[in-house]
């Protein structure tokens, strides 16, 4: 059989295959460049970027939990200016989609980061993190309110020439409400899920294991929640959905595709096996071949439910 076609379209964005690396788990790509050929990836979503550099939270920032981990990095990053100067040139030389994950502390700041990336070569899309539970705005995150989520989306769209993916928070009563709100606001795609809020306590010292008290839960532990939410969202919006959460191998990736995702992101698994994203791509290719699937896009939403 001829090679299956792994290309997928995320609105205006075409990816050579449906496997992206998730923001915050793959640095700026270069950290993994000695271990894998970055050009084989469907794309790289870089670490969340803000207008100014941010030092992040005090340590401890991470703690392992059953089949998962909590992180409270605090969106530490080098800021827009340093990103363009220090990190972008290497990314531009890559032959893969580069998606910049952005966030702000106000709607205007979202706009400003987007504006700073406007017209910049070698950036394939913007992923808007409205869902990070580590950065508070009056105790709440942007992504738990449909109106504010829509406003952020509009603001970014006004300030960019690139496709806009909005990354959704799972810490909500009904994620489809938020998905529909950002769709209506014009988002080209949604990605989900970001981390679930969680906490762990050191019982000897009686203090939280994370200096930040709470953090974001990721890894295989959360996969069932992610698959469920992707399935729900894919049935409620028309824009493409990118599935994220606990993917460890191609079989897990297939669950997301079948549930309705057009592409997936691999996050925490990069720590467990730095070559996992390549293995997922290889696994998907082999699955398509074995099952006589000529275009991987056919798998999206193929879940049978009566």
């Amino acid at each position: 059989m001829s090679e299956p076609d792994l290309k997928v379209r995320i609105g205006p964005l075409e990816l050579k295959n449906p496997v992206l690396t998730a923001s915050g788990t793959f640095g700026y790509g270069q950290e993994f460049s000695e271990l894998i050929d970055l050009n084989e990836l469907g794309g790289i979503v870089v670490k969340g970027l803000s207008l100014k550099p941010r030092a992040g939270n005090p340590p401890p920032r991470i703690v392992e939990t059953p089949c998962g981990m909590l992180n409270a990095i605090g969106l530490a990053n080098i800021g827009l200016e340093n990103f363009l100067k220090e990190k972008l040139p290497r990314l531009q030389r890559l032959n893969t989609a580069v998606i910049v994950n952005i966030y702000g502390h106000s709607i205007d700041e979202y706009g400003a980061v987007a504006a700073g990336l406007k017209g910049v070569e070698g950036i394939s899309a913007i992923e808007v993190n409205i869902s990070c539970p580590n950065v508070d705005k009056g105790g709440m995150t942007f992504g738990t309110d449909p109106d504010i989520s829509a406003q952020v989306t509009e603001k970014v769209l006004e300030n960019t020439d690139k496709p806009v993916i909005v990354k959704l928070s799972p810490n909500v009563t009904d994620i489809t409400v938020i998905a529909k709100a950002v769709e209506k606001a014009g988002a080209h795609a949604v990605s989900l899920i970001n981390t679930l809020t969680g906490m762990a306590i050191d019982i000897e010292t009686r203090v939280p294991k994370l200096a930040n008290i709470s953090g974001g839960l990721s890894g295989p532990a959360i996969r069932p929640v992610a698959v469920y939410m992707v399935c729900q969202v894919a049935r409620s919006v028309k824009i493409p959905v990118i599935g994220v959460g606990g993917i460890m191998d191609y079989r897990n990736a297939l669950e997301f595709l079948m549930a309705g995702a057009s592409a997936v992101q691999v996050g925490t698994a990069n720590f467990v096996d730095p070559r996992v994203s390549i293995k997922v791509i290889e696994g998907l290719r082999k699955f398509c071949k074995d099952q006589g699937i000529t275009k991987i896009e056919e798998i999206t939403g193929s879940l049978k439910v009566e």
Partner: protein
Amino acid sequence: MIEQNTQIIFNKKIAPGTFLMGLRSAEIVIQARPGQFVMIRVGPNTDPLLRRPFSICGTRGDDLFLILYKVVGKGTAIMSNAVKGEKLSVVGPLGRGFELPEPGRKSIFVSGGIGVAPLVFLAQAVKSNLLFIAGYRSANEIVPMEQVGLNLTDISIATDDGTAGHPGFVTELLASHLTESAEGHLKIFTCGPLPMLKRVAALTIERDIPCQVSLEATMACGLGACQGCAVRASKDGNKTYYHVCQDGPVFDVHTIDWESL
């Protein structure tokens, strides 16, 4: 830096709860510098999920590297049950190792407990003009130096409970060597539990003795990608945090904000 499924050549208990593991990898042996570490995946399961960091404790021949580890939890317990012939996925060598001492300087190595591991590798590179001071909680924890491939003439032991060597802290032994006449010609290399490192830091900073410290931090990636392993930088620098996996694990004593630890 590579990711490799390396074969266990041996995995033997050399003291109660302390194991020496030999893993085959010519690639890692060629690249490894004292102070660097590897991230080991203890098994195929996702519980425990993350890799565990271990200092490279030495190399043998051209394709065997050593890990000296203490069983403290789930991951190390699983490792201790692994047998010869099994394979473990290893990523490494990682991080920045020790800077070798300038010729003419006398090196003092100060270890606490399993912190001896990276210093054993360094001692093999430094070879001469070095004093190794190893502290343990008790005599039965002492790592037999011959077994890890080190034949030192100048080694002192301290035990917290006084069951061997100097009764008390290793830093007391260190202090006794920091005489005024010696100070200008010394360089300290240290690894061990945090309270010990803080004391070594205080001793060397106040006497202005060059000192390189190998730090630990909880790590997820080991590659500088997750920013999980932050440690606060001292006020002088222009960074707020260093990442132990990438900027370290070995740091100049002055670059770290010891108060924050």
